[in-house]
């Protein structure tokens, strides 16, 4: 019975593992990831081999040396020689494994001579990418709809592995990542690159990759970071060099456009209706994770905004909290993350939704002062 189970398990394991499959480590698209894959397979086979020998002997004993077959137990219970042998052999196997592992590791930790530097900042629960050499960056958030998560809509192919704005990288360039976090520890992981680096608040960790093939690669946050740890995916779109350059240029110019737009928003006000619609949109995508779509928060963890003193009280205070956050708490400073118009809208929304009928309409202009302080 044992034998059947184990052979079966081993068979399944090895047949699945030999082929590149969905159930094994991905081979990946970088030289490093392929080295890691090969190392993984080597060690896997070494373990299988040792397992076969050890369990094989054990099953042999279980079959041949059974009391029910009338065998009498032997008396030996020591043998220095054999004990030395089976101490030394594993030791050498380990050395044989450690050598390639060390080489690969040294290579992985060599962050020098990068062509492009990207600063990656994790925060609850989104990633911020900054193109270090260009002073340009953006947030990347889960784009799977709440309905799909709540099972009321059919799930798409990339369920939970899709974002509104992926990180875009070129092939064949050494890309250096500077990984850090704003609040708790996150971990930036893309299996196809064999890069997993913890994002520690207050420290910068470095990692690098050089991607061989264009494509879209997906990963997930790999360190428990609170409630929505399962909902902060990573998507990297890798483009041929030329296309990458085009993309970058278009992004840089749209940054300029956005700045202009901001100026316009300052002068032209929103109607209540506009503000509420935009506000709701922003609220649901950014704030609802903690304060809940109903505005009721999670008592003991995240305060309710419905009927809250802040949302019903002084507008200035409300603006201040949203723009500058609350130090030493999960409430981030949204001043850097949202445009003035969106800030105004979401504050308006919070002051008028869920029965918070203050009637206040906040305009981009009102938000401007604290945002720039």
């Amino acid at each position, binding site marked *: 019975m044992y034998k059947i189970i184990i052979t079966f398990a081993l068979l399944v394991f090895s047949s*699945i593992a030999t082929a590149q499959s969905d159930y094994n480590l991905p081979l990946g698209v970088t030289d490093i990831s392929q080295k890691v894959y090969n190392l993984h397979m080597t060690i896997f086979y070494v*373990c299988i081999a040792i397992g076969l020998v050890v369990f094989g002997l054990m099953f042999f004993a279980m079959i041949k040396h*059974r009391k029910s077959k009338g065998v009498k137990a032997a008396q030996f219970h020591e043998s220095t020689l054999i*004990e030395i042998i089976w101490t030394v052999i594993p030791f050498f196997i380990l050395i044989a494994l450690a050598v390639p592992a060390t080489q690969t590791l040294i290579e992985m930790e060599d962050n020098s001579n990068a062509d492009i530097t990207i600063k990656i900042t994790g925060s609850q629960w989104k990633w911020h990418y900054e193109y270090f050499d260009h002073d340009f960056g953006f947030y990347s958030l889960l784009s799977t709809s709440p309905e*799909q998560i709540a*099972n009321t809509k059919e799930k798409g192919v990339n369920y939970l592995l899709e974002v509104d704005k992926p990180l875009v990288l070129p092939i064949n360039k050494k890309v250096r990542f500077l990984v850090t976090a704003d609040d708790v520890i996150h971990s930036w992981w893309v299996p196809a690159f064999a890069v997993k680096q913890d994002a*520690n608040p207050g*420290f910068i960790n470095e990692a690098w990759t050089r991607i061989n093939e264009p494509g879209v690669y997906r990963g997930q946050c790999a360190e428990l970071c609170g409630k929505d740890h399962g909902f902060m995916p990573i998507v990297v779109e890798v483009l041929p060099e030329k296309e990458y350059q085009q993309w970058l240029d278009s992004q840089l110019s749209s940054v300029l456009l956005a700045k202009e737009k901001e100026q316009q928003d300052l002068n032209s006000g929103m109607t209540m209706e506009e503000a509420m619609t935009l506000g709701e949109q922003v609220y649901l995508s950014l704030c609802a994770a903690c304060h809940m779509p109903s505005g009721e928060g999670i008592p003991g963890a995240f305060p309710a905004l419905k009927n809250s003193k802040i949302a019903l009280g002084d507008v200035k205070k409300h603006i201040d909290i949203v723009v500058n956050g609350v130090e030493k708490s999960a409430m981030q400073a949204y001043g850097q993350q949202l445009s003035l118009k969106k800030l105004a809208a979401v504050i308006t929304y919070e002051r008028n939704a869920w029965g918070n009928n203050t009637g206040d309409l906040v305009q981009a202009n009102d938000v401007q002062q604290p945002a720039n302080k």
Partner: protein
Amino acid sequence: MSTLVKNNNKKADIDDFDHAHDEKPRGIMRWLLTTNHKDIGTLYLGFSLLMFFVGGAMAMVIRAELFQPGMQIVDPNFFNQMTTVHGLIMVFGAVMPAFVGLANWMVPLMIGAPDMALPRLNNWSFWILPAAFSVLIASLFMPGGGPNFGWTFYAPLSTTYAPDSTALFVFAVHIMGISSILGAINIIVTIMNLRAPGMSYMKMPMFVWTWFITAFLLIVAIPVLAAAVTMILTDKYFATSFFSAAGGGDPVLFQHIFWFFGHPEVYIMILPSFGIISTIIPAFSRKKLFGYSSMVYATASIALLSFVVWAHHMFTTGMPLAAELFFMYSTILIAVPTGVKVFNWVATMWRGAISFEVPMLFAIAFIILFTIGGFSGLMLGITPLDFQYHDTYFVVAHFHYVLVTGAIFSIMAGAYFWLPKWTGYMYDERLAKLHFWLSLISVNILFFPMHFLGLAGMPRRIPDYALQFADFNQLVSLGGFAFGISQLLFVVVVVKCVRGGAKAQEKPWDGAEGFEWELPSPVPYHTFSTPPKVK
């Protein structure tokens, strides 16, 4: 085996000079006030079984939520609490107390001592546990919920960003620690000081040896955990910044402190298993344990090495290269002494006269499945590979193989092995066999596919997952439910055995050795008031 003849109630080395004591006290007070190592052992074992079910029920919530993609029955915050408290309860409430229970029952019997060295302290160690766990479990029902930061409670998720109830978590861990330390001191002193005359250290039964070493690990490791939670407390409530860069601290410092405790902790949960297996394998192979002294040295080297490998849990935290290399080498080195143990067990079986009663079945399953868990541990120990495996279900698979099919299976093995001695009755062999086979099959359906999930990229501690993980998760959940239900059988067997059954002989297993088998079954309330003679 089990030739179930009538008990030939011959008096062995027990004596009866203290008649006033041999009457067992009755009622609830017996258990509350007891100083008897057997009673306390029973209390520990009962508590641990209860906690296994509580922690198991939480695992069932986890598995039910993960049965399908999409959020099903709990919200993410509660899911995190389930994961966290499941881990905490299983580690501190199920496995450790079970081992302490076995030590309480068996160590004095095996070394021929009248009781533990400090019987009152022993009772205190036990009764702290229900207090600690009621606080921990109660915190789940507080506003904001209970601990939701993983059983490893990494800062600053467990400080600045933690729920209000964290203070209760911290103090509960403190008193659990007190309980463990006092228990460990008691066991060490009992072993050092109460052995029967003539029992030198190198004549002690393996189970006693492994517990002796485990107790050292406890004494050295647990205070470090106490310090870690203390710093969490001050960081959260008293504005210190041990784990915050803004004040000159470092979140990774927490991980160093935690794992300096945490890694020895995982060996605390496996060394006594090694002892149990080293007791059972020779008994049913009817052959002496192969390589007794190398077993002792191997256990000691595992214990020593366990203090210099902690950062293998932290390869992705951005340590300098030299540190990563050091911890990789020291980690994989542990395979050598552990291998010695596995090989010695196989050599013990080699040319023995093996029979397959339930304790032996569990022991054999232990050897195979623990080794599989050890292999995946070895893979995790290779730093460049850990970059891929870390914080995925591959890790979850690894540690459930060493913990469930390792620690838990060995506890089951031990329980079946000694039940006749404790209760005086044989357990129901048919039901027990059923329990074994169902457990064996379902546990592999439960944990084996987790390797694939991890390799394919499923992170751990997530309440919902991408569609490509759906099939395996469903299988895993089904295995989980089956394994959970199978454990109800264990309870049935134990209850039946306590209530009655075929009378157990003094020595129901013909290959077993040791003082405990020279005592009648069930063991009298007081034993070895006069120490037995070592042959």
